[in-house]
């Protein structure tokens, strides 16, 4: 397949409830499942669709994200021939969410330039906070079979699977079989217990329709996002369909949903659904040694990345790269990010350690499944329960 899609990743995502994990990184670069970052999932979808380029719109400096993406070569996005990852830091975009400032004119121009210079027939918009593994080729097939102009990916979920004040929206479908979209609705206003079609904020759209909307958005100073595209397409009475996704999905909205998504991976069905259902998930792999498990190690239902040294007990937990777990350390139902050290005679349960946390001998930390304790990057945890922030 030759280059047919121009992907735009809208990475200005709702991150307030994910602090302190998002203090210095966008949602897109949140670590996940021992080796990944959330951006790996949409990027792998692009790889598997043989996309050649991608435009990223983020707020803030994006340093941690750029450091992960580098040239995009892991995802086949670094071709010398028409390829590339084009990054746009939209400093003002974020504040405009609250409606108090106008968009930078470059916001529209950057979108326009990227899409018109690309030789693609379609624009694909994606985000990173709705964790999933979407097959864009199937989406495109569906889109063409339906003669659709805009096709939005959705998943049937229960209202209760999302947080109370979620920022996500639901599609209202004409009927499930046809998939024709009739409206889009804020989920926060919906009752618990309801089943709904979650708008996965992933969309394929004809290039011309994209450019038509862009012109209107520029005139009216509107955001370029999936919800607005849906509204626009409905107003213009053009064909718009929903495409059902049936794989693993988790909305990463707050610390608990982030924690749950990681824990989900310890269930083989979820793990296989996300990593083996469709196409492989690719990430930037670093040079590493195998992980060493000592004679005193006791492991039960846990996942690890390379480069660890494990001498203690690890149960129902996820351990990232370059972590050391001492003898008689007990780690349970926890997420341990890279470069952390857990000394001997320690106890961690329902805990999230951000990168490079040091847990000193004798320390004990215990959260709850609904409220896991989060230790920020570079933090040190002492035996007496004192925590020194990194």
């Amino acid at each position, binding site marked *: 397949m030759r280059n047919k899609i121009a992907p735009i990743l809208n990475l200005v995502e709702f991150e307030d409830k994910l602090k302190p994990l998002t203090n210095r990184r966008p949602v897109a670069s949140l670590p996940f499942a*021992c080796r990944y970052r959330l951006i790996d999932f949409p990027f792998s979808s692009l790889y598997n669709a043989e996309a050649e380029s991608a435009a990223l719109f983020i707020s803030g400096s994006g340093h941690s994200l750029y450091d992960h993406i580098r040239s995009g070569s892991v995802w086949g996005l670094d071709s010398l021939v028409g390829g590339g990852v084009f990054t746009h830091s939209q400093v003002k975009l974020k504040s405009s969410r609250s409606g108090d400032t106008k968009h930078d004119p470059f916001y529209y121009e950057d979108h326009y330039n990227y899409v018109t210079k690309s030789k693609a027939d379609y624009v694909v918009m994606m985000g990173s906070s709705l964790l999933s593994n979407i097959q864009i080729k199937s989406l495109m097939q569906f889109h063409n079979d339906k003669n659709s102009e805009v096709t939005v990916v959705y998943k049937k979920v229960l209202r209760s699977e999302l947080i109370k004040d979620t920022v996500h929206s639901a599609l209202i479908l004409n009927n499930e079989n046809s998939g024709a979209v009739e409206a889009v609705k804020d989920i926060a206003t919906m009752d618990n217990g309801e089943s709904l079609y979650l708008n996965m904020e992933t969309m394929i759209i004809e290039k011309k329709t994209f450019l038509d909307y862009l012109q209107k958005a520029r005139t009216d100073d509107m955001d370029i996002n999936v919800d607005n595209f849906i509204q626009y397409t409905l107003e213009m009475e053009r064909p718009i369909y929903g495409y059902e996704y049936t794989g693993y999905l988790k909305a990463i909205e707050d610390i608990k949903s982030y924690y749950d998504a990681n824990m989900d991976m310890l269930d*083989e069905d979820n793990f296989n659904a996300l990593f083996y259902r469709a196409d492989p998930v690719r990430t930037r*792999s670093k040079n*590493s*040694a*195998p992980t060493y*498990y000592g004679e005193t190690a006791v492991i039960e239902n846990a996942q*690890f*990345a390379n480069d660890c040294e494990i001498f203690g007990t690890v149960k129902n937990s996820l351990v990232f790269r370059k972590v050391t777990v001492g003898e008689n350390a007990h780690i349970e139902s926890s997420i341990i990010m890279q470069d952390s050290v857990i000394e001997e005679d320690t106890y961690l349960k329902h805990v999230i350690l951000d990168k490079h946390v040091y847990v000193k001998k004798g320390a004990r930390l215990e959260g709850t499944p609904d409220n896991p304790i989060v230790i920020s990057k570079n933090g040190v945890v002492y035996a007496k329960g004192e925590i020194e922030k990194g």
Partner: protein
Amino acid sequence: MKTETVAMILAGGQGSRLGKLTKQIAKPAVPFGGNYRIIDFALSNCANSGFNDVAVVTQYQPLVLNRHVGNGSSWGLNRHNGGATILQPYSSVDGEKFFKGTAHAVYQNIDYINQKNPEYVVILSGDHIYKMDYEKMLDYHKKQGASLTVGVIPVPWEEASRFGVMNTDKTDRIIEFQEKPENPKSNLASMGIYIFTWARLKQYLSDSQSKSRHMDDFGHDVLPAYLRNSESIFAYSFEGYWKDVGTIESLWSANMEFIDPNHELNIRDRDWRVYSKNPNTTPQFLTETARVENSMITDGCYIAGEVNHSILSHNVKVGKNSVVKDSFIMPNAVIGENVTIEKAIVGEGARIYDDTELIGTEKEIAVVGYGEEVGGYSDEK
């Protein structure tokens, strides 16, 4: 930019003593230590020694090796117009150019070296497990003003007769070379590492060609010729872990030693890393029924059984109620349920079906070949 040094890694050998492990791939491409292939050690040494121009000279079953080495980017070699270059047999107006020996392989690729026009050529072999700073040896070579410096390692006197040994005078000048001598005069064994001042070596190789003298092998031909002509040849002594993994048993025992977290190679040393090409794969998944002890496990493994004093390379699956002990499992091998594996090497992509026993001894390690299937409907080969 002037290229000071070109490194030539001779990776053309078949490694026939590794039996079925090298039937489809060259010895330097054989997996090692869970995350590596044998040649990674020489390549990482080059990178850590600051060499950018590294040629991998290959002729036996090179497909896997070539794809592994690529342009050298996994070792950080693809910089400054340098990088790894694969050199393979070719034809020219002078005819077909297969490589008859170590020195002949270098001579046949003289065009490559001439383009780089280096001061020094470092000859390395692609099949040893060690960490060595070649730059220090090069500094020594320069300091001595040598035309050839040979890397040597002290071996126990009783084993010296198995090696090519170098007799040196008090200044470390090599005055005699004995190939597998009955009565060795020295216990300094050649590591197969040579630093040549290129202009001189080029002369020897070219002259020999025009005079129809044989200059095919560095040990058999070039070194004696240098000695005869009183070239200044020095021995550079290396002290540290160095292991030839040319047989099944040595490959197995080198892997077993490698498990030890206090192993001399110190694989986790951030200042002298061993690099490799990393596959794209998932995390290691140890299920509720897994028991893993004193072992090295690599990303992509799925373990529901017991693993004891073993190395599992990436993407190995071990089913429930299976036991893997004192063994080295190469990448992508699948081990079913109720399998017992002991003192074994299991090749890449092999499949060991349910209810199979595969038990070797220290003297005769059990070996399963590349992609081989054992148990189940297939016959044990």
